C-alpha cells in the first residue's frame, strides 16, 4: 500500500525533507512507517504522531492512502 508521510518543524529539518510517499506491505503500524520513512532512525519518545490529522499511537495500524505525520512537541499560543 501507499502512505503519505509528513514531517514538521525540527523533525523536518533533521530529516531534510517535509515528507515522502512510502510503499509498504498491507499490514503496517505507524512505527513501521517511521522506520521506512526515516531510513531506520530511532524515534525519540517525545515525537508526536497522527493519522489523517488525528493524534494516534505508534502501534496504531495504518491503511492505504493514509496521511501519517511525525512532529516534535507543539509550542503554539
Amino acid at each position, binding site marked *: 500500500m501507499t502512505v503519505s508521510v*509528513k514531517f*514538521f*518543524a*525540527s523533525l523536518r529539518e533533521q530529516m531534510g525533507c517535509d515528507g515522502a510517499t512510502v510503499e509498504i506491505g498491507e499490514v503496517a503500524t505507524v512505527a513501521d512507517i517511521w522506520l521506512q520513512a526515516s531510513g531506520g532512525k530511532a524515534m525519540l519518545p517525545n515525537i*508526536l504522531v*497522527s493519522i489523517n*490529522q*488525528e*493524534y494516534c499511537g505508534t502501534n496504531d495500524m495504518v491503511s492505504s492512502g493514509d496521511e501519517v*505525520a511525525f*512532529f*516534535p*512537541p*507543539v*509550542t*503554539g*499560543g
Partner: protein
Amino acid sequence: MSIEISEAAFNPWEAIQRYEQEHIVRQYAGKVGAVATFIGTMRDFNEGDGVMGMELEHYPGMTEGHLQQIAEEAATKWTLLDTLIYHRVGRLIPDEPIVLVAVWSSHRKEAFEACRWLMEELKSKAPFWKKELLTNGESRWVEKNTAGY
C-alpha cells in the same frame, strides 16, 4: 464559533469588536453577561536570550481541525454563547499578537474557565511550532511551553 489561522498580522481588539458586531450583538442581544479574552503576544526575550523574530509553523488542516475540536469540546463542558480563536503563523516580530481566544457567556465562571482551558489545550496539543531568531544571530526551535497552571 470561529477558528482562524492566518499569516496576516492582526489587531486583537479590532478583531473582537468586528466579531461582536457580526456574530454577537444581534444573535445574543441581552444574553451576554461575560466576555473573557486572552491575547498572547511575542516577547523580545525567552529563556534568558534576546529574541528578534519568530517563524511560526503549523500543520495546515490538522491545526484548524484540532482547534475546532477543542472549541466544540469547550461548548460541551461549559454553557457558552460563542468562541473566537485566531492564531498567527509565519514570520512575527516582538509585540505582535500571536493568539487570541475570546469566550462569550451569560455568567463569568464559564467564560473564565473556558478561556483558560482553551489556551492550555491549544498550547499542549494544537500543532504549531515556534522557531526563534535570536539577537545573537542564531535561531532555535522552542522546545516546550512554560507551565500554564
